């Protein structure tokens, strides 16, 4: 287990390094350079040159790269280009909001998807096709609904028509109830896709396990189907499900960008869109790296959880 964690950790470090390097050099591929792209038509001549100097673009490329690495190591993420606010400060404010949304979604998803997927699998196993077909069909459609469209439909239904949730407004930590109402719709929208994915995976895994030989063994010892389902099938299905939670975290992050944009939630995703629209490449670079590292770390963690759940892995 320790060997394995170490190996994975080394991989994590290599990937992180690769991500940082890739993003840095890709941004330097912008036609012209970042400064002129950022400035657009607004700056010219000396002003543009000053901006280049400020961004360090006149240094040799490799020097810029080293500078970037050393500032990253010091957690110096630079400043926004127009307002001169340290990016780390913005990030510190935005991350808790995005993470609250993400974690709430995961919790909600697990609570709904696993029972639903198990039920579908059990029905399929018993040859009761109708309910299973209904559940899998619904899951497929929900899974494929574009999340920005779902968001708009929910906004139209629950906010504009029924008035259950506020469509906009302050996001503040001072009033937890207001905050909950404010992020309820984003979480619901994200959960639609997540529930669909995870219910499908749960169904497939449980169904597969229900036809395993050891399930038949348990049945041959006189255990009821329900006990076999809970004691054997779910326990074994937990392994693939954990992996999927990790992998679908990527889709979840994709989704947060969209719901934050639509519901004007001041999370990391909104920062990113703002950064792109104001051509603040420093910020875009930092945020993309942040997302990638978060995703990689989550996968690293789920991998370790998986390994610790599986007794076949030697400690």
């Amino acid at each position, binding site marked *: 287990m320790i060997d394995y964690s170490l*190996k994975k950790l080394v991989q994590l470090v290599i990937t992180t390094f690769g991500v940082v390097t890739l993003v840095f050099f890709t941004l330097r591929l912008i036609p012209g350079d970042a400064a002129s792209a950022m400035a657009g038509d607004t700056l010219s001549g000396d002003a543009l040159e000053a901006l280049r100097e400020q961004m360090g673009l006149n240094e040799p490329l490799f020097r810029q790269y080293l500078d970037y690495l050393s500032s990253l190591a010091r957690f110096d993420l630079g400043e926004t280009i127009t307002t001169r606010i340290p990016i780390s400060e913005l990030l510190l404010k935005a991350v808790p909001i995005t993470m609250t949304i993400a974690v709430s979604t995961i919790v909600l998803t697990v609570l709904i998807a696993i029972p639903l997927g198990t039920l579908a699998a059990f029905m399929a196993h018993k040859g009761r096709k109708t309910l299973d077909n209904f559940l899998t069909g619904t899951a497929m459609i929900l899974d494929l609904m574009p999340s920005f469209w779902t968001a708009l439909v929910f906004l139209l239904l629950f906010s504009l028509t029924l008035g259950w949730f506020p469509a906009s407004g302050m996001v503040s930590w001072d009033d937890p109830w207001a905050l909950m109402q404010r992020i309820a719709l984003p979480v619901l929208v994200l959960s639609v896709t997540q529930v669909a994915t995870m219910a499908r995976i749960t169904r497939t895994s449980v169904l597969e396990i229900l036809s395993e030989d050891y399930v038949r*063994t348990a049945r041959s*010892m*006189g255990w009821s189907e329900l006990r076999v389902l809970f004691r*054997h099938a779910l326990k*074994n299905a937990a392994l693939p499900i954990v992996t999927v939670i990790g992998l679908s975290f990527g889709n979840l992050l994709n989704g947060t960008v969209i719901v934050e944009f639509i519901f004007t939630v001041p999370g990391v995703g909104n920062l990113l869109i703002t950064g792109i629209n104001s051509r603040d490449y420093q910020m875009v670079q930092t945020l993309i790296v942040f997302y990638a590292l978060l995703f990689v770390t989550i996968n690293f963690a789920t991998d370790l959880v998986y390994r610790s*759940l599986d*007794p*076949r892995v030697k400690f």
Partner: protein
Amino acid sequence: MTIQQSIDTPLLDVRDMTTEFRTEAGTVAAVNGVSFQIGQGERVAVVGESGSGKSAMAMSLLKLLALPGEVTGGQVLLDGRDLAKLSERQLNKVRGRLVGTIFQDPMSSLDPVMRVSEQMIAPIRRHLGMSAAQARAEAVLWLDKVGIPDPEGRIDAYPFEMSGGMRQRVMIAMALSCRPNLVVADEPTTALDVTIQAQIVEVLKTLTAESGAAMLFITHDLGLVARFAHKVAVMYAGRIVEFGPVSEIFRDARHPYSQSLLRTIPSKTALEGGRLPQIPGLPPDMKHAPDGCAFRARCAAAEDRCASERPALTSRGPDHAAACWRPAGLGEAEKQDPGVHQPRRNDQGPGSRVVVEIHNLEKQFVTPSLFSRTPRQLVRAINGVSLRVHQRETLGIVGESGCGKSTLARILLGIDTPTRGEIFIDGTPQMIFQDPFSSFNPKMRVSTIIAEPLIVKDWGDAAARAERVRWLISKVGLGPEYLERYPSELSGGQRQRVAVARALALEPSVVVADEPTSALDVSVRAQIINLLRDLQDELGISFVFISHDLLTVRYMSDRIAVMYLGEVVEYGPADLVFEHPVHPYTRALIDAVPVPDPAVEANRSAVPISGELPSPLDIPAGCAFATRCPMATDRCRTEKPQLRKHSRLREAACHYAD
């Protein structure tokens, strides 16, 4: 079966049981009106080829079938109570408690993420109402009885920490732990090596006899039947075609199928140089079950009546019944069908030219471990093997899994490279692989599969190749229409014929056949073996025939090499090695193989060789076999015996081989 006027009611009385699989392609009656009885403490074997419905029948008794299989009719009377009518709830009180079940594959039949203790103790508590501590003690007791060393400690192990043989012992302990009256065992030893199989069979036999439990034993191995059963039911196409006491069936079978089946085994009688008797054709496709007798298309004695009316099981004596219109089945005339006892046409015997010479071959695999603290480990797959094969000779290589026989084949063919040692081959070698289902590219037609060696070697032009491919396929007894097919459209036996045709394409001097028949059913097996021998006679090729099936190897081979843990422990003429084994391992191996003859089996010493194969990571310092050898001395444990001449024709690696 005929109504039996018996005073004591049988333990299990199955009447006209039918099981159907409803699929999109149609309904298949896998079990089609089966009736039989098992008395108290009786061991009944059910034999049949794959698809005969024997497993479906066993699983139907307790309704353990997975969908779309469903029991659709009949009665299953256990002590007079009809299990077919019980609710799931009531059945769950029978399952495990009154009837224990043992499954085929020990590697997958235990829950991988649960300790053995969890899986064993809960049923005991539930069915026998014991406390947790009592149940644990009971479980330990059973583990001890089935021969698990250190049961106190091993009970908390996970299944993956045990070998296949140990897991099957756990399975048996579990099935017996709630003291059932009947044990259903579905091919419980098929996945195991022959020495382990012998141990498991012995355990089953002893423990059921001890507890007085009756047993229903599903198998395709007639040898096991002879060793194990009191009575035997022969199944064909979903029906029991013959039922009777073991000794009677083996001596005087009455159904043509049982009669043919018994003769296809390469046993002693077939060793007099004749071809193996074979059953022509294939079992019927159960989706389109034929009218009348299902066996008639393959039966030498079929009459007009067989096509229209299906014979019922009728009495052939006390406790003996067969389903055939002819009282004696094939009868004497058909038993002697021409070609069967014909001697091999052109038996010149092995030539003197050496075709393959292997000298001091070694193959080691290194287990990779990049970040592991444990050092890289060395697996010694082959540990100094020297062998030679003469022209027109068949060298049989036998041994259990892990003995290195397949690695040897791969090295001979150049798929793997040896770590040390030399190989000399005069001419080209070719290979016939074990699994006819994975040895062909599913996207290639048969014509391309056979032609591939010719194409990559630039043999002739396209027309010449096509001509040769047609010649080859006719050589293996298939029509040219098969050339346009894909492998998925062929049966197992047909695939192996194609494999033979392909192997012959480049006129090889030696053909290495790695378990070429072990994936095939008995009746088809004989066809392939005869084909190989005919081709050898005609084309003068040498064979290296690798198998764990000792009877087949003996039938096929001129000389035999017995391998254990990467070494040859005995080498010599096939008959000599089998009749008078010199090495203790050879003796143990031959003893372990059940012979399809109840008389022989009855006189056998009941002590199978103990222990399991040591890990090839950790080969003993002295004789590799010393850990299991009943004759091992201190010398064996420290000093490694070399393979040396034992007599004029034989070599053995044992200090005490005299």
